[in-house]
């Protein structure tokens, strides 16, 4: 037998083996199907609501008297259904804000929908929402509950949701060219509103307001990176995604810039920011900045979540540095079927503030679920932002689009470890996601877990960008133990 003759069956055998492996991989099996069970590890579904099949962004869970209320912001409608019908009113309504009673998480009750701005996808809706009690805001009506939301790209609004089934508009701050992921300090009323002031050179910068009396907003200043201000010339720095403040106690605001490109963490002195000269000159914009952490060109910063003074077990016996200030930076994936560099999670040690340094990273395992082939986006988008002790500095939950939510044990942020995940099943409400291949549009239907939040009871709330709704989860097994939950 010649060498050539030997090679042919060898090739054939290898080919068969490869085909066999391909058949055995999760690729084919993990294309989501309606009716199939969710995929889960150490997380369990408690309850669900379809949110009237509206594309969902920010959930905020608020303990309101003896009730737990979920406020959920929405993107605009889809080409197929621009204005879904609200079964409570029988009317077609622009996507806005869903208000859901989740006191019994197994049976969430949809209370009310406040319509948002007309427009589809990111061009409409009311995606952001934050909630403060009147009794914690310094100058507000103590009986009120205030919901701050965006109104599409046009405005910020504050509603009184003391009766969550009958919200009442209190204030509107309009005249903007965009809005996004704002932050509101409930103990001071200071709000960092991600806005597009008409004369600024970017769609998204920060307008800082004193909303301690929501009925009478007081503008403090506009803020952004030097070069973004009105009248500047030359390079326009990457636009803002969203800030998170530690309030007066921490005296820091962590600004995340970028989405999936040119990202940056900016650490700002809150006191200097609020009390510095407000005119948007390059000098005044530079003055409150403490440091920047510039990321690789192909990653952005959607969420910059501070976890200060984290005790690190590995460093417990070190003479210095036993506690570290950590900021978790979450990029946002924006292109379907992995059409970009991986967007993931980065942990930055900012203990020496002038020299922030990335010390670890996390991404869901693409090969474990063949996520690049499932359809829609794969990669990180956002994390929970609650600082309630139940999970704070212990567990982080990352919305990972078609990989669902990923539960991370972050007690050692130098070595974050995935301890659970949950990928909801798709339903007949789940919207398709398309790419163009060979000039033809090819669409797939997959979960697009967009945002996540937690409550003080230990429930995890995830919402879907592809219209599948709200899923309320809890940890089980080792993940529950890692969180210290009974």
């Amino acid at each position, binding site marked *: 037998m010649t060498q050539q003759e030997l090679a042919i069956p060898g090739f054939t055998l290898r080919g068969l083996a490869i085909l066999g492996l391909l058949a055995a991989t999760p690729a084919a099996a993990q294309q989501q199907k309606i009716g199939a069970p969710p995929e889960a590890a150490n997380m369990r579904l408690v309850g669900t609501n379809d949110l009237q099949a509206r594309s969902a962004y920010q959930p905020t869970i608020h303990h309101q008297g003896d009730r737990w209320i979920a406020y959920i912001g929405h993107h605009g409608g889809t080409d197929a259904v621009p204005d879904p019908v609200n079964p409570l009113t029988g009317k077609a309504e622009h996507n806005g804000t869903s208000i859901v009673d989740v006191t019994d998480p197994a049976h969430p009750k949809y209370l009310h929908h406040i319509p948002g701005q007309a427009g*589809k*996808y*990111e*061009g409409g809706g009311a995606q952001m929402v934050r909630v403060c009690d009147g009794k914690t805001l310094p100058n507000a009506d103590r009986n009120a509950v205030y919901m701050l939301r965006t109104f599409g790209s046009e405005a910020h609004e504050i509603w009184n949701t003391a009766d969550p089934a009958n919200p009442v508009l209190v204030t509107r701050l309009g005249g903007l060219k*965009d809005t996004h992921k704002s932050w509101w300090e409930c103990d001071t009323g200071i709000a960092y509103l991600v806005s597009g002031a008409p004369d600024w*050179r*970017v*769609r998204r910068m920060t307008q800082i307001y004193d909303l301690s009396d929501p009925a009478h907003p007081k503008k403090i200043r506009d803020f952004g990176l030097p070069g973004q201000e009105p009248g500047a*010339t*030359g*390079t*326009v720095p990457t*636009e803002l995604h969203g800030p998170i403040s530690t309030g007066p106690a921490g005296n820091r605001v962590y600004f995340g810039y970028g989405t*999936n*490109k*040119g990202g940056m963490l900016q650490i700002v002195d809150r006191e200097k920011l609020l009390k510095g000269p407000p005119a948007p000159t390059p000098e005044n914009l530079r003055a409150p900045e403490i440091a920047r952490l510039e990321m*690789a*060109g*192909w*990653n952005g910063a959607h969420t910059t979540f501070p976890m200060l003074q984290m005790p690190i077990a590995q460093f417990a016996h070190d003479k210095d540095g036993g506690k570290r200030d950590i900021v978790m930076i979450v990029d946002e994936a*924006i*292109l379907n*079927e992995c*059409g*970009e*560099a991986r967007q993931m999670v980065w942990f930055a040690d900012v203990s020496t503030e002038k020299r922030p340094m990335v010390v670890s990273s996390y991404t869901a395992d693409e090969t474990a679920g063949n996520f690049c082939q499932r359809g829609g986006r794969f990669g990180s988008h956002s994390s929970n932002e609650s600082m309630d002790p139940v999970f704070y500095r212990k567990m982080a939950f990352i919305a990972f689009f078609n990989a669902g939510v990923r539960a991370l044990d972050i007690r050692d942020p130098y070595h974050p470890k995935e301890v659970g995940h949950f990928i909801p099943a798709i339903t007949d409400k789940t919207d398709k996601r398309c*790419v*163009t*291949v*060979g000039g033809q549009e090819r669409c797939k239907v997959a979960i697009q877990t967009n945002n996540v939040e937690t409550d003080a009871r230990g429930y995890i709330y995830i919402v879907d960008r592809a219209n599948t709704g709200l899923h309320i989860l809890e940890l089980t097994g080792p993940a529950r133990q890692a969180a210290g939950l009974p």
Partner: protein
Amino acid sequence: MLTRRTLIHALLAATLVVGLAGFSTFAHWYKAWMDEYGPGWHATAWPFLRDGFAPGRAWRNGDVTVYVRPKLGFCANCDTGVVDDSEVDQVTDVDLLDDRFTPVGAGERIRVTDLVGRARLYNIATPAGTRTAWAIAVNYKCDLIVALAVGRLDDATVRHETREFLESNTVQVWLNQQLEGR
């Protein structure tokens, strides 16, 4: 013993070989020279450092150089596309040549093949002195295609020729390949 006739044949053959080799070398050199300096557009190296977007392509025609690349998923508004000058300042690559670029007046709406967007002229500082750059941004759904031309772009005829080149098969075939899957 070689005859005189054989020697002459050998000499002629050698001369022919040397002549052909010389011609071939000259032809190669001439083609390379024409590619580099001849009339029309010629590909040249993409000169910029890696950033968040994939590198593009560059072409040169005389003293005009044009840089083109798609920026996938970068469009702020997929429906309206690029509609104001501040967005042209922000999304085009003019800052890669000079981060203190200065706009020369207001921009204008532009159409390149069936894509529409906005274009603006800038003064930029280069080692060779102040030059004019013409930055163009058009959108295809949620993706941007940006072009930057540097040279005598203050001349409307040169801008017209540059736009025609952007609409040519040379650029469009490459761009369509880059937008595959979008």
